[in-house]
C-alpha cells in the first residue's frame, strides 16, 4: 500500500494510504486518510478487513500506534469500517466518531475496547491536539447517516464517497485531467447517490468552505480549481438513477 503526504505544516499533516498493489482483485480500491497533529492522530475511513494488515504497516511507518487516538467512519459500509474488530485489538484506547444512526449496526463489526462517540445529525467539531476538525453533515450522500470531514487549518475536505471514481488500482493519487475523470465518476454518483435535494444541500454547505484539496474515499483527489469544477459538475448531475 502506498502512502503520500498531502499536507504538512509543523507537526500537522495529512497522509493518504491507498493504491495497494497486493489488494485482492475483486474488492474496490479505497483511500484511507490520517490526520496527525503533534502526538495525536485520527484515521478517517480506516477501511476493510482485507486491507487491515497493509494499513497497519503504513500507519506505524508514520506514527507510533498509541498516537492513534481517534477513528472516524463516515458511514457504515464494509469498505469504510469492517476492519473495526481488528483495530479494536490493535488500539489500547481510542474513540470512534461515526453517525449516531449507525452505532448499533457498526458494532456488528466487533468493538470492545474502542469507545463509540456518536456524531449528531447536525455535525460536530473536535480538537486533535488543539487543532479543530469538523464533521460536516452529508446525509443521503450516499448513506442516510453520513459525514464529511473538514480541517480548516489544512483546508482539506475528506468527502467520503462524494467525488469517488471507479478507477484502476494504479491510478495517480491526484486527478490529472478533470474532463477525462468525469467518465470514471459519473455512473458512481448517478447510481449510488439517491437524492438531488441532499446533493444540493451538501454542495451549498461545502461551497462556503475554503478547500484546497477534496479527498474522496475512491479514486483521485481534487486539488485547486478541480475542486470547484467538481462541485459545479455534481450540481448539474441528476442522481438516483435506479428509480428513474
Amino acid at each position: 500500500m502506498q502512502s503520500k503526504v498531502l499536507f504538512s505544516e509543523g507537526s500537522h499533516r495529512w497522509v493518504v494510504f491507498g493504491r495497494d498493489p497486493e489488494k485482492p482483485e475483486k474488492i474496490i480500491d479505497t483511500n484511507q486518510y490520517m490526520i496527525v497533529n503533534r502526538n495525536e492522530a485520527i484515521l478517517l475511513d480506516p477501511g476493510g478487513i482485507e486491507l487491515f494488515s497493509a494499513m497497519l504497516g503504513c500507519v506505524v511507518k508514520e506514527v507510533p500506534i498509541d498516537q492513534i487516538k481517534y477513528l472516524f467512519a463516515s458511514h457504515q459500509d464494509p469498505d469504510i469500517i469492517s476492519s473495526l474488530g481488528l483495530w479494536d485489538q490493535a488500539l489500547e484506547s481510542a474513540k470512534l466518531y461515526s453517525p449516531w444512526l449507525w452505532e448499533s449496526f457498526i458494532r456488528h463489526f466487533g468493538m470492545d475496547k474502542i469507545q463509540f462517540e456518536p456524531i449528531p445529525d447536525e455535525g460536530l467539531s473536535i480538537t486533535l491536539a488543539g487543532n479543530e476538525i469538523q464533521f460536516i453533515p452529508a446525509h443521503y450522500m450516499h448513506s442516510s447517516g453520513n459525514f464529511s470531514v473538514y480541517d480548516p487549518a489544512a483546508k482539506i475536505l475528506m468527502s467520503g464517497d462524494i467525488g469517488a471514481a471507479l478507477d484502476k488500482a494504479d491510478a495517480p493519487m491526484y486527478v490529472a485531467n478533470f474532463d477525462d475523470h468525469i467518465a470514471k465518476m459519473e455512473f458512481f454518483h448517478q447510481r449510488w447517490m439517491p437524492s438531488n435535494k441532499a446533493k444540493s444541500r451538501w454542495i451549498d454547505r461545502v461551497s462556503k468552505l475554503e478547500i484546497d484539496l477534496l479527498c474522496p474515499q475512491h479514486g483521485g483527489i481534487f486539488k485547486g480549481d478541480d475542486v470547484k469544477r467538481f462541485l459545479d459538475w455534481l450540481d448539474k448531475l441528476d442522481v438516483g438513477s435506479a428509480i428513474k
Partner: protein
Amino acid sequence: MSDKKVFVTAAEVAAELNKGMVIAKRLLLIASNARALALRAGESAAGFRPITDSIDDLVRTTLDSSKVINGKAQRLSRIATAENRSALALSKFNSMYQRDKDAKYISSLDHVYEETQKQHVALMVEFRKEAKSLNDMLQDLYSELRTAQIISTMLSVEASQAGELYKNQLNSIATSVAESANAIQSHVSQSLKLFSELTKAVYAIKSTV
C-alpha cells in the same frame, strides 16, 4: 481452533439438542395420557401410575440438562468467535511484521501483539475447559436416558397385568416411551459424536500453537 467448523459444530450441537427437547416435550404428553389411562383402568393398572412419575422425572431432567447444555454450546460458540477474532488479528499482525519490518514505529505494536497473544491463549484454555464441561454434561444426559429403557420394560410388565380392555393401550404407551427415549438418546449421541470431532480438531490445532 480458528476453523469455521467450531462455529458450525456448536450450532449443530444446539440444533440436535433442540430436536431432543421437542421429543421430550412430547413425552410429557405421553406420560400424562398414561396417567389418565391408568386411572380409568383402576386397580388392574395400579402399578402404572408411579412409573408415569418416573417418566415425568426423566423428561424434566432431559429438558433441564438440554437447556443448560444449549446455553453452554452458545457460550462455547461466543468464545470461539472471540478466539477467531484474536487469531485473525495475530495473523494480520504477523504478516505486517514480516512485510514492514523496517517501519519506523513498528516496535510500538509489540505490547499490543503480546497482549493479543496472551488473550488468544486464554481463550483457547477457556474453550477447552468449557468444551470438556459440555462433553461431560452430554455424557451424563446420555447415561440418564438409559433409564428410559428400564421404565419402558416396567410399563410393559405392568401392561401385561392390566385388564384386557387396557392392555393394548398401555402396551402402546410403553412402546411410545421407549421410542421417544431412543430418539432423544440418538440426538444426544449425535451431539456427542459432533463434539468428539470438534475436540479432535481443537487438540490438533493446540499442538500447532
